[in-house]
């Protein structure tokens, strides 16, 4: 039986233009992605200028500011922008609303820049206000993607992971706002008239603050970070890779049961470890081990997918992504060490926490994102400039939009930078951290260079006419 996907007829003189059923406008994801790249450059530069942020204990205003610059400015911008593009494509459906996504971009930009600045000057009341703006944007994002998921024709492991990630990002943002509220004092409410609605609102916020103050501040902060880092980013990496790795390596999922169980276990582990981190309970180790088990199953399935691949040569974009997945395992080992109930609370332990955070955000998440950016940005540019030209002129392939040599150089400098920075942070070496982050900066520069090359195609498309007429082909008849 023939399963026809789509066909259409056309006559000469009316060249056919693809309508891109699954893709939103190119400008929207590109706006998020370019914002993310600027934040990455700023964040890396910040670490080079102030290496003590990683070489000393992490609970201070500058570390929190630079962490939010990386998490919200770089990672969330790119991930959310890419999700507007990838979720409809990967799940074969259409984005619910581009208009909501555009409003999200505005709230996101205002929210995260304001938050980072206010963390920097440690004005927690304003952090809360800008956090509300950011949360409004996240609300629009969650609603938009959730409505998009409702249109998915065939529910699978990827759709489940995306749905779970939406839940965890909502919880992470709520937890962050609660922490901000808990650190604020609303003395000004005393002067407000009892009938004013704002007094009721602020009274409610004070109650939240009172409730949150019962928890240990560091525990609450770690639980909040955990929700974002594992619940949103890792969940997406796991879920999306079940679709993208087979697609880019010409393979297929080898065991749907394995894929589903890795996602279910990761969710259980996350829920349990969030509560245990908040309460600073030694039971967090049990849930972290469950999470490690889920990642081991995920790794098992990834190896099986790669073994069954039909494309023997892996391109650099996939190499970045697979390296990030590989780094999940040292990261998991470090998580187990840091959860160990009898771990001494000394300077070295504090530095290991820095290494854990850095390895998670830069080693795993950023490397995975950069790998996928080498797929997404060329696709966006190509789709915008060449999809209407294909079959009418010679168009470049995706890999021809950038330099693979620079891409390979970027891989090795980023790997060196990540490794060096981790070691330097572990031994509290400010000079070492500066050197490691300098290498990272070089890696980021290679990415910026290649993205610049890709974007030049938007301004100057590089098509060539076909070599018509083609050489005459003898008629066998």
């Amino acid at each position, binding site marked *: 039986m023939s399963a*026809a*996907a789509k066909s259409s007829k*056309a006559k000469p*003189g009316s060249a*056919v233009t693809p309508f891109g*059923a699954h893709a939103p406008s190119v400008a929207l994801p590109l706006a998020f992605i370019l914002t993310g790249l600027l934040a990455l450059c700023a964040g890396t530069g910040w670490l080079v200028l102030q290496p003590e942020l990683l070489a000393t204990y992490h609970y201070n205003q500058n570390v929190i500011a630079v962490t939010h610059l990386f998490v919200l400015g770089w990672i969330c911008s790119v991930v959310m922008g890419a999700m507007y593009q990838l979720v409809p494509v990967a799940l074969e459906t259409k984005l619910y609303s581009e208009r909501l996504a555009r409003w999200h971009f505005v709230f996101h930009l205002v929210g995260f820049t304001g938050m980072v600045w206010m963390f920097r000057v440690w004005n927690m009341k304003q952090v809360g206000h800008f956090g509300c703006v950011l949360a409004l944007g996240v609300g629009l994002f969650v609603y938009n993607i959730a409505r998009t998921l409702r249109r998915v024709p065939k529910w699978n492991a990827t759709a489940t992971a995306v749905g779970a990630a939406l839940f965890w990002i909502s919880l992470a943002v709520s937890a962050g706002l609660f922490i901000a509220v808990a650190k604020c004092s609303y003395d000004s409410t005393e002067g407000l008239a009892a009938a004013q609605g704002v007094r009721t609102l602020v009274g409610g916020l004070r109650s939240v603050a009172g409730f949150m103050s019962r928890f240990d501040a560091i525990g609450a902060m770690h639980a909040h970070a955990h929700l974002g880092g594992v619940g949103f980013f890792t969940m997406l990496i796991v879920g999306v890779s079940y679709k993208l790795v087979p697609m880019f390596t010409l393979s297929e999922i080898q065991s749907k049961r394995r894929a589903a169980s890795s996602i279910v276990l990761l969710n259980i582990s996350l829920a349990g470890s969030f509560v245990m981190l908040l309460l600073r309970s030694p039971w967090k180790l049990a849930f972290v081990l469950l999470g490690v088990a889920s990642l081991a199953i995920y790794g098992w399935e990834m190896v099986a997918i790669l073994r069954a691949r039909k494309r023997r040569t892996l391109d650099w974009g996939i190499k970045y992504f697979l390296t990030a997945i590989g780094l999940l395992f040292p990261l998991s080992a470090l998580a187990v060490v840091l959860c160990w109930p009898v771990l001494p609370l000394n300077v070295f332990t504090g530095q290991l926490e820095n290494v854990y955070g850095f390895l998670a955000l830069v080693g795993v998440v950023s490397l995975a994102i950069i790998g996928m950016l080498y797929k997404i940005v060329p696709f966006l540019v190509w789709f915008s400039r*060449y999809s209407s030209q294909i079959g009418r002129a010679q168009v470049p392939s995706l890999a021809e939009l950038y330099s693979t040599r620079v891409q390979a150089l970027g891989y090795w400098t980023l790997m060196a930078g990540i490794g060096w920075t981790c070691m330097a942070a572990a031994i509290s070496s400010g000079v070492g951290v500066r050197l490691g982050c300098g290498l990272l900066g070089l890696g980021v520069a290679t990415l910026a260079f290649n993205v610049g090359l890709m974007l030049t195609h938007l301004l100057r498309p590089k098509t060539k006419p076909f070599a018509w007429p083609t050489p005459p082909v003898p*008629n066998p008849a």
Partner: protein
Amino acid sequence: MKTITEAAILESLRQVIDPELGCNIVDLGLIYSVSVADAKIAVVMTLTTPGCPMHESIRCGAQNALLNIDGVEAAEVEVVWDPPWHPSMMTEFGRSATGVGTF
């Protein structure tokens, strides 16, 4: 009237690449059948993976390439998933261009 041959059609379709793999759709083994009747061409093809983001671009590209052939009045391109594509359908040139192993 000029005769439209299958070889000429395939030659024209060789101008259309899968941008992700960087190889033309004929050597990738994506073309399942070609038929010509009264200056109208019908092509049945597939893609390497369902849900391919380039689906519409490649299909429209194939249609545009067919319309470039002298004497063609109409072109129809149908994308099917059965039988599913497999690298064994590729030509030797396609395999070497894309780094796909031998089957």
